[in-house]
């Protein structure tokens, strides 16, 4: 019995194979961007062959893909038509009328108008009141005329429908879909009342429009994927990872494609969770630092923190997603001086072309990677496993230019570049821990990405985080992450109700209805409902506020549990805002139930490596840690034995990353070949 996980990235497709839930194999094959499924098939064939398994043994196929994300970044989604309540055709364009930069008069339009220009946004005569009552009946003739124009004149391939107050009464949206389906069968339709049944029309429209925009692409992709797998002879369910870090069946994923848009980072965070499980940590901060950006997320009690206020390309996307926070800090981040000789690092990045100065591809500006070379952390002859030879002289030259203007020497300037970038990243971690009421000292860091393990040691020190875990194969971690994800679906409903006027009958009816929908969805995917665990949440706030907090609620609410709910709300409020408002009434806004089917969790066997630390020693290199260059031992990661211990300073090299053990730190290799760094020493 085997499970196979495949994760398509920009350059490589990662494949992981889990044998009997115990033995794990991984490999990478080149991605095939034109026909992404081809790479998946090739990778699967290769790993089956390598491990001597056949397709008949496959229990489940788990999959991660950035197909939806890329459609948005490249603006290559469907030709979209939008139906809105008449008079509100321009909500997409006007948005909230705000901008991100305060003093820049040369900014561009701040809303995702590219999804559908005005000519493809049609107003429909209909109106639901704020009470949910129908004020103006849906003009079905209007719908037919608008849809015909969108499809026949404007070539629309998908339609997003967002009527005002449809979250209180979806009757007009549902009827609109029926009309479209009967008159133009095969056209993808996305309804706002289904996708994001919560108030604020612009934010709800964005979810709906992005969903419709990627719908045909995701639908076609899922079909190709299932077809490709069938060709290999695999007929089992395919599960696709969602932005929330949960899995959905391919069918369910194609039904709500918006949930795939931010699934890329979710895979990485789940990979961090996988490693944390191995190393026995429940609370981890995953950091992923590549060439241009630094992604950070929290996994608490084994669950990633979920946000509902995410963004895609800076447009609001109100769907549950693993809360990955990104700042422009990476190996390619450019160090620059402002007119007053203030040193800045990033957010601009040299990317991979021209890349850092040391790449020798024409980049002349000093980057974080150049600093790492000057400091002796990176091996110019063994970068990316030796695929790229770094020119140290170019790094020195680039940093010299800055050092001269600052009146500092080259190594302390390079060290300064690291300090500036490290403090930015540490501030970001502070923001998502301390500001949300979590103490970073109770977490371990899982360091990923080419530059993550270079910087993690300093981040941990400044945040007083005791432990850093550097996984053995950071490169295929996203694929491993799929193996620890659960099958999930969420149902939600608006429930405007004051706590002190609580209607128990109504509330419990709604909760039962959510369960009915959850059951239906799970059973459609062949999951018996008694194997489903349920997490019930209420979005609550003080009466008069606009932003809600998520509070756990029981299966049924009675006079006793309502007291507990009130206490829970006060606790969450106190944790996040440090305040409890006494005497201010509290209200419910939404109910949300999360249906979770736990997938069999791997119990990975140790692949303990024998040998000795001495055998792993490659040599020594001069490295700078703030106080003159020190002769520092260099180790080969692939030869480090389980149980081996190293005192800092030390540098551990492997093909896809470099780990720096700073002075006063130490590390050991655990049973799964993870490097476990004791970051605070002692």
């Amino acid at each position, binding site marked *: 019995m085997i499970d196979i996980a495949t994760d398509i990235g920009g350059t490589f497709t990662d494949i992981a194979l889990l044998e009997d839930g115990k033995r794990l194999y991984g490999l990478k094959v080149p991605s095939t961007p034109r026909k992404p499924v081809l790479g998946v098939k090739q990778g699967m064939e290769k790993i089956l062959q390598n491990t001597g398994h056949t397709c008949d043994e496959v229990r489940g196929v788990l999959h991660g893909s950035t197909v939806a994300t890329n459609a948005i970044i490249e603006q290559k989604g469907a030709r979209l038509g939008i139906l809105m309540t008449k*008079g*509100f*055709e*321009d*909500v997409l*364009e*006007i948005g*909230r*009328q*705000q*901008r991100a*930069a*305060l*003093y820049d*008069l*040369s*900014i*561009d*339009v*701040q809303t995702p108008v590219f999804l559908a*220009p*005005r*000519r493809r946004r049609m107003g429909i005569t209909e109106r639901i009141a*704020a009470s949910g009552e129908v004020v103006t009946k849906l003009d079905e003739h209007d719908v037919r005329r608008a849809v015909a124009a969108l499809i026949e004149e404007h070539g629309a391939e998908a339609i997003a429908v967002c009527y*005002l*107050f449809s979250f209180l009464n979806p009757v007009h949206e549902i009827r609109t879909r029926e009309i479209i389906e009967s008159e133009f069968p095969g056209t993808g339709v996305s309804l706002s009342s289904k996708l994001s049944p919560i*108030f*604020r*029309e*612009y934010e709800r429209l964005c979810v709906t429009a992005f969903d419709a925009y990627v719908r045909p692409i995701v639908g076609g992709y899922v079909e190709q994927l299932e077809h490709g797998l069938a060709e290999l002879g695999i007929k089992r369910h395919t599960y696709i990872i969602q932005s929330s870090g949960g899995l959905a069946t391919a069918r369910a994923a194609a039904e709500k494609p918006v949930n795939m848009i931010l699934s890329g980072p979710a895979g990485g965070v789940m990979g961090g969770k996988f490693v944390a499980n191995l190393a026995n940590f429940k609370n981890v901060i995953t950091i992923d630092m590549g060439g241009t950006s630094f992604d950070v997320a929290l996994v608490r009690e084994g669950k990633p923190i979920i946000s509902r206020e995410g963004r895609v390309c800076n447009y609001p996307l109100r769907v549950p997603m693993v809360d990955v926070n990104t700042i422009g800090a990476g190996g390619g981040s450019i160090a620059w001086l*402002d*007119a*007053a*000789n*203030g*040193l800045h*690092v990033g957010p601009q990045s040299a990317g991979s072309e021209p890349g850092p100065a040391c790449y020798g591809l024409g980049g002349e500006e000093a980057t974080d990677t150049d600093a790492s070379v000057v400091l002796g952390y990176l091996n110019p002859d063994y970068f990316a496993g030796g695929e790229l030879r770094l020119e140290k002289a170019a790094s020195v030259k680039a940093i010299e230019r800055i050092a001269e203007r*600052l009146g*500092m020497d080259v190594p302390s300037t390079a*060290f*300064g570049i690291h*300090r*500036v970038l490290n*403090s*930015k990243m540490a*501030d970001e971690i*502070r*923001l998502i821990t301390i*500001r949300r009421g979590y103490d970073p000292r109770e977490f371990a860091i899982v360091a990923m990405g080419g530059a993550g393990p270079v910087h993690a040691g300093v981040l941990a020190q*400044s945040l007083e985080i005791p432990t850093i875990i550097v996984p053995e194969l950071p490169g295929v971690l996203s694929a491993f992450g799929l193996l620890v994800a659960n099958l999930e679906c969420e149902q939600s409903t608006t429930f405007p109700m004051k706590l002190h006027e609580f209607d128990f009958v109504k509330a419990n009816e709604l909760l039962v209805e959510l369960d009915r929908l959850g059951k239906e969805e799970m059973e459609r995917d062949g999951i018996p409902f008694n194997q489903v665990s349920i997490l019930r949440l209420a979005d609550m706030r*003080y009466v*008069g*506020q*606009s*932003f809600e907090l998520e509070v756990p609620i029981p299966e049924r609410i009675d006079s006793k549990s309502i007291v507990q709910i009130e206490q829970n709300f006060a606790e969450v409020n106190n944790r996040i*805002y*440090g*305040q409890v*408002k006494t005497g*201010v009434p509290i209200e419910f806004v939404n109910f949300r139930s999360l249906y979770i089917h736990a997938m069999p969790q791997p119990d990975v066997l140790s692949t303990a490596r024998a040998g000795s630390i001495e055998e792993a020693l490659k040599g020594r290199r001069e490295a700078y840690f703030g106080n003159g260059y020190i002769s520092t031992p260099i180790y080969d990661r692939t030869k480090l034995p389980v149980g081996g211990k190293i005192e800092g300073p030390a540098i551990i090299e492997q093909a896809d990353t470099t780990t720096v053990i700073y002075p006063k730190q130490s590390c050991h290799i655990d049973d799964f070949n993870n490097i476990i760094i004791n970051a605070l020493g002692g």
Partner: protein
Amino acid sequence: MNRIDPITLEVLRNRFDIIAQEEYVALKKSAFSLTIKEAGDCSAAVFTRNGELISQAASLSLHFGLISSAVKLIIDAYPTRQMEEGDLFIVNDPLGGGTMHPPDIVVATPILYGEEVVALGAVLAHQIEFGGKSAGSMSPDVTEVFGQGMLLPPLYLFRKGKRNEDVVNIIRKNVRVPDQVIGDIMGEVNAVNATKMSVLRTCDEFGGKVVVEAAEELLNRAEAMSRANIAAMPDGIYEFIDYADNDGVDFSKRLKLQAKVTISGSDLSVDFTGTGPQNKGAAGNLVFSATRSAVYHAVRVCLDPSIPNNAGCWRPVKVYAPEGTFLNPVLPAAIGPMNVSQRVADVVLGAMVKALPGKLPAAMNGNIGALTFSGVDPLLPQGTYVAGDFWVGGWGARPNKDGIDVLDIAIGNCANVPAESQELEAPYRVLQFSVRPNSGGVGQYRGGCGMIKIFELLRGSGEICHRSERHTTQPWGLYGGGPAKSWYSEIVRKSGEKEIIPAKLIFPMNEGDQLHLYSGGGGGYGDPLQRDEEAVLEDVLDGKVSVESARADYGVVIDSGPTTVNHETTRKLREELARKRGAINWTFDRGEELGKE
């Protein structure tokens, strides 16, 4: 003094920015009033112990000068060396040099590290209500400041950690929605306390002395960079004149705005001598702190956007407005209108166009429209309601691209209130919310369009306080670009009868009455006959420019069915129109009334 090392300096610059940003988010998320929670009419900032702004959260540009003035007032009244742990101050006092109008409430706290004040944390929030003649405290027709709501000189809101219940009780007695107002003031308290904790942690990490020195050094550097920018501008004296609408009392009145910008080396001064006298109505007077803040904004947008935003940017700038003019009114003047602040910025920018030809955009729509809805709703348990909204126009076309359609004015950055939030909280229905066609100035680059928004009162009776600008003049176009449409508002009574609203007016509403709002566009830039034909076609297809305007203003002939450009007739028409018009020998086009210059 030890020179602070450049690395620590940058680390602390980032830290100060993040601290302000965090507090802004906390303030907004825990707020009760629509103006704060949805529209974001609030700001957060960190100050040096001398009261100079170190960092600010990205919200309203105008606020930063105001919050700085208010902090200065506090420090003058309670010197920092006398401040103690747990002290918190509250102030508005517009004519005393504080905020722009009574509902703008600043709360500030000293941050003591050990015995010493190392910094101050402060926030400004526009409270939905602060007493006075009418709900929302923003009535344009009041004639003395005493009718505009409560005036608070700098007062202890907390003394050594204990709340001053006297102050709280007085406020509670004087406002219409006390729970909301007190709740939001306490939200301000929480936000500044959180700033305090963050700054103290930073002091633990770097030492209090380093934090104080770094702040001063960051200000010096921003000043140096701003001076370098100004020094690169041609020395000279540049003047511009424009007119604001009325003062909310005498509707036929025009308010003359006159700015003289002097650039000399790295100094820039603005003198408003020649500006009209102090007016009777509140809508016609801008307190000096707001005038100065508007000038800071106008100068700031002419500088490199990447200069760190702190008070150092303002040090090279001097502002003078004679006392008794409507940009520096004195007691007992009624005061208030935020929208005049953009007009002040625009008149300075008009002068700056002369200093920096070809570098600045055409005029923005010139206004941020602000509404307060109040009344009694029979369906609401508490009966009365006070709600608000902001409606906005288009941006001026830039030297290389079109202006943005419908985006809050540069000096502000307030969000609209979603129709669904509005209808859930007040008995109004939003009937329309869309882009206003043909409202942007024509040009090689088109000015941004304004918008149309229509409200209908569903139940009961109430009042609307309508505060707007640029109803009687037009945002100017540049170098052949046309002026944009003015703002326009009307009441359409249930009977069908229409009443034009003269920019600033407070009026009753009854069930079935509608308010129709048409916001202005931004001016156009460059010769419209040179505009790319396809760009004109796109605008026609998207309903932003009519077929008639395409022909008459752009000389582009659009054929129907299928909608395409008729290139041949377009070429001839453009030649003919260019011949009739002659060469473009003017800079500004200010529309029918004020003409070209």
